[in-house]
């Protein structure tokens, strides 16, 4: 079986502001892209694992975490793990950068 990897160009790195989240829709998938103060970029599914849902892209970014804007869950941008005392995990996507173009790997 041949595995296909799809790389989708999503943004210019220089256009992204630090400590901000961007919502990106690829076909039917909604992805939240975050640029940290350190310059790192992470991509997560734009949906909180809270039972009632909620988006992540408008959450407050602190270090390598984002706080879900609706129920204030603290979520790791690196592995998508929800921090204690809450529980859950958000799907993460790997981000690749070629010069100024950022790609999301599906």
């Amino acid at each position, binding site marked *: 079986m041949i595995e296909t990897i799809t790389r989708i*160009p*999503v943004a210019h790195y220089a256009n992204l502001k630090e400590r901000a989240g961007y919502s990106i829709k690829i*076909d039917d998938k909604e992805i939240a892209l975050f640029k940290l103060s350190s310059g790192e970029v992470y991509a997560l599914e734009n949906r909180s694992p809270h039972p009632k*849902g909620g*988006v992540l892209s*408008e959450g*407050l970014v*602190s270090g390598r975490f984002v706080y879900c804007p609706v129920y204030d869950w603290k979520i790791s941008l690196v592995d998508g793990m929800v921090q204690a005392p809450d529980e859950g995990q958000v799907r993460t996507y790997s981000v690749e950068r070629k010069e100024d*173009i950022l790609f999301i790997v599906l």
Partner: protein
Amino acid sequence: MKKLVMIGNGMAGVRAIEEILKVAPDKYTITIFGQEPYPNYNRIKLSNILQGDTNFEDIIINPLEWYQENQIQLYTGETVVKIDREAKHVISDQGREVDYDELIIATGSNSFILPIPGADKIGVTGFRDIKDCEMMIKSSKQYKKAVVIGGGLLGLEAARGLLNLGMKVDVVHLMPHLMERQLDPIASSLLKGELESQGMNFLMEKETVEILGDEHVTGLRFKDGSEVETDLVVMAIGIKANTAVAKDSGIYVNRGIVVNDFMETSEPHIYAVGECAEHREIVYGLVAPLYEQGKVLANRIAGIVGEAYEGSVTGTQLKVAGVDLFSAGEIFEDGTTKSIMIYNEYDGVYKRVLTRNDLIVGIVLYGDTTDSTRLYRLLTKKEDISGVAIFQTACSGESSSDDIASMPDDELVCGCNGVTKGAIVEAIQAQGLTTLDQVSHCTNAGRSCGRCKPMVSNILAHTLGDQFDATAAQKTSICGCTTVSREELVAEIKVKGLTSVKEVMNVLDWNNEEGCTKCRPAINYYLGMIYMDEYKDDRDSRLVNEKMHANIQKDGTYSVVPRMYGGVTTAADLKKIAEIAEKYAVPLVKLTGGQRIGLFGVKKEDLPSMWEELDMPSGYAYGKTLRTVKTCVGAQFCRYGTQDSMALGIELEKKFERLDTPHKVKMGVSACPRNCSEAGIKDIGFVGIDGGWEIYVAGNGGVDLRPGDLLCTVKTQEEVMEMTGAYLQYYRETANYLERTSKWVERVGLEHVKEVLANEQTRKDLNERMDLTLKKYIEPWNEAIQNEEIQDKYYAKHTITSGSESK
């Protein structure tokens, strides 16, 4: 998922639900019925409310959000009247039927009201819930004299509270000694002496036979024929398990609902827990055993084979009117016991340990309870005490630290929440905790009755060793990222001249470099408050609603509420709103509580164009700022109106709109005391009277329902503006971030605020700082429309079809 229903919404039951959520999070959909119109609150603290030490919000254990987050359907103010065991459903007094697979009865208990003539008169109450407290507080404002029947713990706490409320209090007790079930005669006479010196009057060995009066109580008659006058009777004789619904439904009931070691009643799939349950012929009334029961029940319901409940030995740590007491095990000597005593009448300290065959069988401590944990361990573990020093001498100085060192890890520190020393030490070390507040937060220790806080503090000191900072450990830090309190933060910002959120976190050594959702908005607020027009707002330190200038809804859409000064609009504006609502297919158009029109369910990416087409300023329905000024029609049209309420409302709203405040601020303006704008429950309310305005402050119509207090009466609209500016600015400068005006006024005192604002120069200075601050605000919707960078960063949704090249 299976259905779990609980009848009762009190401490024991809700704790059991918490345990169930822990061990079987997705097994049940949960429904809870509560008779009282509140979420679960800490009943132990009712006496503090009565004594004025705390308010209702502080004693809520599980706020309504907790029920929502755990998807628990809660029906408050609703009583279950029938359990249909055949059909497996319960029926409430409002006719609601809910099916169950498993049913928990946690109906608690009621005050025991003496069955004597007159017990139904107005002015007779138990002491059991918020309603009782409110009744007593209300009576104290109207009447002078109260009688408490019952000289047990509950009765004495009620009496102390009534004394604080300024009433004259008699305590009637049937027995010759107070608290005879916990104290021996010596301790009880010491207590009586102390309470008498605080102003309580005791009528001992009196049996009440009748309550006198017509509709309202006027006095009591005792068996010996004597009488006493009173305006209020509080019955605190004891509690009675609330078993009515169980009994009516054919479940076996003795004194309580009879359960086995797994909290199962006589009926399959029906359980009982808490004060309504009778286990091995004992009905428990203290919180620790009830929490133990909850744990056993949770395992049973989760289908986990766990330990059985085998009953509890109870040690009672009490504080009555400032006196520390501890009591456990047997109280009275018999021929086989030997006592070890310390009796220091001078310092008011009395300790007695009752032993039998080299084992401790009973403990009474009065005035000094530092030995309680150690002695209680010797009692419950049945350790041989020959050769053991029973009482530590007070002169060793470091005894507390030694005590901690010798304390085994499995020793229970917080009995209410079942937290051991080991768990506390582990949390301190693993999570780097440095304050009592943090330890309570992480472990639950000290969160119920609070008596173990000194012990937790000692453990913290012992664990941290040299790094322990006693003053820092006691204070409330603004969040877990720091140990700095609000006062220190504001002082440090000023002294060190810190000018940005980042700099504050950096210089003040935040342990979490970029802060969290609690501290960042707070720091941003304080900086804006201190530097007024010189501070550049850090938009990314605001939470979603203020950052987006729209209210986020649970599905990620937003609401748009345009400004409508004083709630006054025009036909043209209404047409425009209607057209835009149609054009953008807005799912919901609704009048808000503050006399505005809300458009709900708007997509993020539609916000800027909708704002542009509306061409109206933001109504700030989302911010910690002035929300709305609600007005009545007033003198312009209303035949009762004495003042122009709409004009004042519009002037207020135009002046103070967009101002950052510690929490939201709502205003109301009425043109006459009929008060159609509900100004009496606003942060600031204005009521027109003949020849002037009354200004009411600190009202609240929300969670913390509170009528406003009259701040002052002024003659002209200019004076209204001057006083309001000064008041608001003083609130801005002295309140904690997220403290509503109602809480703030209660904390600092209305008299204090009046005093400050009485000084004309102070008012002038406050108004100058207010005006300087107001200069900096620009209309945010218009700013977003003009600024592409803002649009791209906050409002764009980038849609990409896979295979395409760029965004």
